[in-house]
């Protein structure tokens, strides 16, 4: 346990030092991995901890991105626009979508969440004031007291700060009594009900927390790219996050981050060498589902355990 924490700390320091060690492109890849890591962790709260396989998580990612883009462009380049508003919007949407979706379970839950995210997509795609199919360009980064976020290393630390915040908060949540209840729901939902747990309320709370954090990730993505488009809302965006979670290891926090790194790494590096990188990715993913359901993290543990 302690050694794991030490390892994580060392990793964080190394990531923080990246802008001073490597070129600007690897740094940006690292930033993207951190952002998608936050997104994947937020999905894992639903998927790995509460047993809710959502194909609609992209709705909150995209919503956070759009709200941040609108607020940063049109209102004020402040932390309120970059953090508070996107998180609040995603939480509110999560409450509504979650309330309606949690009434059903299993496959129907998957489909209903997917339908909701597609509705968000259709809405953005059809809205002229949201830039329709082309999305919203020219999203400025917020101004924080004396910090120039347009400088790569400052922005890097800014993203890292959010990442650490999300990680610490989620680590706290999953270890709290609430997190234990979620574990119980994931393990045996029917029994939890029989024991007297108002399971839907716990699931809804988890759904809203996940949505909120996804909204923050979406906001960071919009700031990172200076741009947000309807693709962020599309269901395959949720699918990619699901891949990340499964490849890395569901039901852990390090897993999704590892998965994000693997996915983005593969997508960015492999695709330079072969047009058939999706085949390799798909095959690798199938392999994980079949033979290593605990993901990369599970493999590492198995290795370490001998």
């Amino acid at each position, binding site marked *: 346990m302690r050694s794991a924490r030490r390892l994580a700390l060392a990793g964080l320091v190394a990531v923080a030092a990246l802008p001073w060690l490597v070129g600007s492109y690897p740094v940006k890849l690292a930033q993207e991995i951190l952002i998608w890591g936050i997104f994947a962790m937020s999905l894992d709260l639903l998927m790995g901890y509460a047993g809710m396989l959502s194909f609609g998580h992209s709705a909150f990612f995209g919503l956070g991105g759009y709200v941040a883009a609108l607020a940063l462009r049109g209102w004020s380049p402040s932390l309120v626009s970059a953090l508070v508003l996107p998180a609040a919007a995603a939480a509110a949407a999560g409450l509504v979508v979650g309330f309606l979706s949690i009434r059903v379970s299993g496959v129907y839950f998957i489909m209903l969440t997917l339908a909701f995210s597609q509705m968000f997509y259709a809405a953005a795609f059809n809205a002229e004031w949201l830039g329709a199919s082309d999305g919203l360009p020219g999203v400025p980064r917020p101004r924080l007291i004396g910090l120039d976020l347009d400088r790569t290393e400052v922005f890097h630390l800014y993203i890292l700060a959010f990442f650490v915040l999300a990680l610490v908060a989620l680590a706290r949540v999953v270890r709290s009594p609430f997190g234990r209840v979620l574990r119980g729901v994931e393990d045996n939902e029917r029994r939890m009900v029989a024991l007297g747990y108002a399971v839907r309320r716990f699931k809804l709370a988890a759904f809203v927390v996940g949505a909120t954090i996804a909204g923050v990730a979406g906001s960071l993505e919009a700031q990172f790219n200076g741009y947000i488009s309807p693709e962020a809302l599309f269901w*395959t965006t949720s699918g990619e996050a699901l891949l990340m979670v499964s490849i890395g290891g569901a039901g852990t926090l390090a897993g999704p981050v590892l998965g994000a790194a693997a996915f983005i790494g593969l997508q960015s590096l492999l695709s330079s060498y072969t047009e058939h990188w999706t085949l390799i990715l798909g095959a690798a993913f199938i392999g994980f589902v*079949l033979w290593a*359901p605990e993901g990369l993290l599970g493999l590492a543990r198995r290795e370490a355990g001998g």
Partner: protein
Amino acid sequence: MAQALNGLEYGMLLFLLSVGLTLIFGMLGVVNLAHGSFYALGAYAGIAVAVFTGSFWLALCVAPLVVAGVGAAIERSCLRPLYARGPNAQVLLTFGFIYVFDDLLRWLWGSHVRSVAPPAALAGVVALGPGRFPVYRIFVILFGLAVALLLWLALERTRLGAIVRAGVWDAEMAAGLGVNVARVFTAVFAAGAGLAALAGVVAVPIQAAYPGMGVEILVRTLIVVVIGGLGSLEGSLAGSLILGQAETFGKAWLPDSSMFIIYGVMAAVLLLRPTGLFGRALR
């Protein structure tokens, strides 16, 4: 009137596509996200056969068999080990196959859009009052109805059908009947894949084929199945017809919100009847 016919034809195509998905779910409890890939594979295999032999009808027979074989292989090798692990693992597995098939199709046949003309006997239009309607689309409607009828007969009147129906209700019960459940699972999955391929071949003269076609139609197919109720033949038919009409009239009369309509219909159905129109509460 003309639009209703359009909706019917589109609905029939959706039915051909969705019925396999719903059968697979009903029997195996698997939501096969790679179903669209079977559809695309069927379309390409159909084109290959049609071009090679010059016969659309032969393509309609051969391609589904080929794809059914692929389906059987996937079920045996990849899905079978996962039955014990619950639905999420299966959904994820079939999601992975989307990526694999998407790329394989491109590798085998390139990225160009391909198509074949409908057979000469079905070319042309017929006058219907003031409007005109393509003969081929009438064929699609009739073909869809015929498949629906055949499937219904097969499920209601044959021993295999009885087993499948029993399996839909309770796999353990089916096992109790002394049935080799594993073999039935493989057969049903193969049949579902073959039906998707059949839809692919039928669709080619109207829709053409390209590698991304499977993913594009997947979401609609899932919506049909969910509206109708997973695992139900009647539900799949009803869902297809509803969605066919909703989408056709939506496009024609409410083009600005046509993208919402199908999702709206689905959300409404699920909120009112959480297991779809013909679904059961179990699972």
